[in-house]
């Protein structure tokens, strides 16, 4: 009986151990690795879905939030404390629909509100036209922009405190205007 209990206990313990390794050990190992990587200045970065962007000077790539794919993709740059994200995904609506969708995603976060009016925006080469606006969040502010390219939407969000955003705005605006759609093969 005691031997059976011991074997059963050891078996149960082994199951819990493996589950623990997967549920807690892997995330702990993930956290122990550096999640950022420097990106070359001035070189277009492939976001995915045929979209490229030139990162702001000194930006670091967040490897955990960057997933470039063939028909979609996402990238997160860390510009000091500012988070600058570009998300490309298939979309079959118009520009106002895409802006509407992005606004809904933003306000779906607790405490987030869209503020001010949207304005037109275009990229430096005049290829893409979009809409841009701002939002507020507890202790933070943010800006967003959305473009359409082919059958894809390109969503840009920037978040940080107001002073941080003001300081970094020229570099990030220039980066956003560098977005290019080269199409898909």
């Amino acid at each position, binding site marked *: 009986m005691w031997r059976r*209990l011991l074997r*059963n*206990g050891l*078996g*149960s*313990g082994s*199951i*819990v151990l*493996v*589950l623990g390794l*997967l*549920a*807690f050990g*892997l*995330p702990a*190992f*993930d956290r122990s*690795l*550096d*999640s950022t990587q420097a990106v070359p200045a001035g070189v277009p970065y492939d976001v*995915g879905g045929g979209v490229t962007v030139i990162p702001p000077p000194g930006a670091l*790539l967040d*490897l*955990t939030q*960057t*997933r*470039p*794919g*063939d028909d979609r*993709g996402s990238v997160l740059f860390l510009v000091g404390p500012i988070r600058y994200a570009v998300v490309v*995904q298939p979309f079959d609506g118009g520009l106002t629909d895409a802006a509407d*969708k*992005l606004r*809904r*995603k933003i306000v*779906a976060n607790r405490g987030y509100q869209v503020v001010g009016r949207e304005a037109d925006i275009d990229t430096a080469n005049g290829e893409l036209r979009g809409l841009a606006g701002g939002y507020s969040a507890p202790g933070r502010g943010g800006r967003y922009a959305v473009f359409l390219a082919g059958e894809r939407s390109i969503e840009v969000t920037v978040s940080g405190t107001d002073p941080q955003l003001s300081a970094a705005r020229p570099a990030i605006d220039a980066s956003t205007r560098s977005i290019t759609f080269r199409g898909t093969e």
Partner: protein
Amino acid sequence: MSAIPGDGGNEVLPTPEGALSRGALLMPAFWVLTLLLAVGMVRMAVFLRESITVYPVATVVAVALFALYAVPFWIFVGGLDFMEREPPTLLVTAFAWGALVATAVAIPGSGALHNVLAKLISPEFATAWGAAIVGPTVEETVKVLGVFAIVLVAGAQVNSPLDGVVYGAMVGLGFQVAEDVVFAVNAVAVEGQGDRVSPVVITFFLRGFLAGLWSHTLFGALAGFGVGYLVVRTDRRLSWRIGVAALAFTGSWACHFLWNTPILLDGPVEGALGVLLILVVKGIPPLLLIAYVVRRAHEREAEYYVAQLARLNDPEIATEAELRALGSGTRRAAAREHAHGRAGMRGRHAVRKLQRAQAHLAVSLSRANGDGETAAVARFSREVRAQRARLVRLGHPEARAPEEKGGTVRSVFTLAGAAGIVMMVVWAAISALGGR
């Protein structure tokens, strides 16, 4: 412990009467399993509460659709072991492990492993190959642990490799349903158009029908076979059994890997035809492989139980033709169909009850283990004779399947026809979804 004909091994280890309840509460595994299920349930409840708060209609529709989707799978998997059905409590436990424990562990584990690939190799590699590597590695592991947990709690109930198949498939089914609900709700969130049902319906077709046949239920069945073999075939060397279990697990991993791999996604054929090609190349071979393994496990277990009845040498219990029919699901069904043709619905019903009683009797005989007429043996012998008398009254005394003429050719044509119909349905679904 008895040997099966032609094998000389322990294809089946008969379950002692009352084995499920005996001493289970004293076992640490019981309490560990209970605790893990409770934690998983809380996590799933939190997810569903948050989803219902934001997307009430879509969440309810997703849960309802995939719950309905699980019903035919449940009936099929639960009925795989005709001769000795598994206790419903354990089937529910296996399903709950997949739906609650496996998903609760797989979500953080998979996310972390994806990140590790992106950090150690590159985000491009993680995007392209992450699903193929992470999915099988984390998910197949947590699922097969569920079968081991069932073995620890009620080891006597896992008395043939086929039982491992049943529990493995049930864990996989639970995982598949829960994961699909999560995917459906996420699709609604990603679409960003509010509480809409269309992303749920698209997810239902994509993950339920296009990917559903060669998904977790199938992979879990293969890994479960390995656990069943490891536990039951004690006549073989431990190293051999571990090797078979490892091979089965590797097989489930490889099937899952093949399905998730990006190979062929950029193939030469585009649109609906391209998707169909992917399904045929990535889905059909694992489906056939695993179907073969399951069929062999089923046949070998059936041989064992049929031999129990054959040993009685009593045609009132089972004739030669009935013994032949009893060992195969197809022949059992043919015997019922034959009875329907000769004696109508009552004939079909009577044959079904006779086959059920014969199966119960065979299991009772195996559990009696040469102890003569136990209460269960006596009870099911009476039941068999009662059903036999009923069949005699109906003018159809023998529950045999008709002679098979050109059976193999007919089976091949039937299989090809079924495959053709499935392909047409899949084609229609792909076309309706725009070939995505």
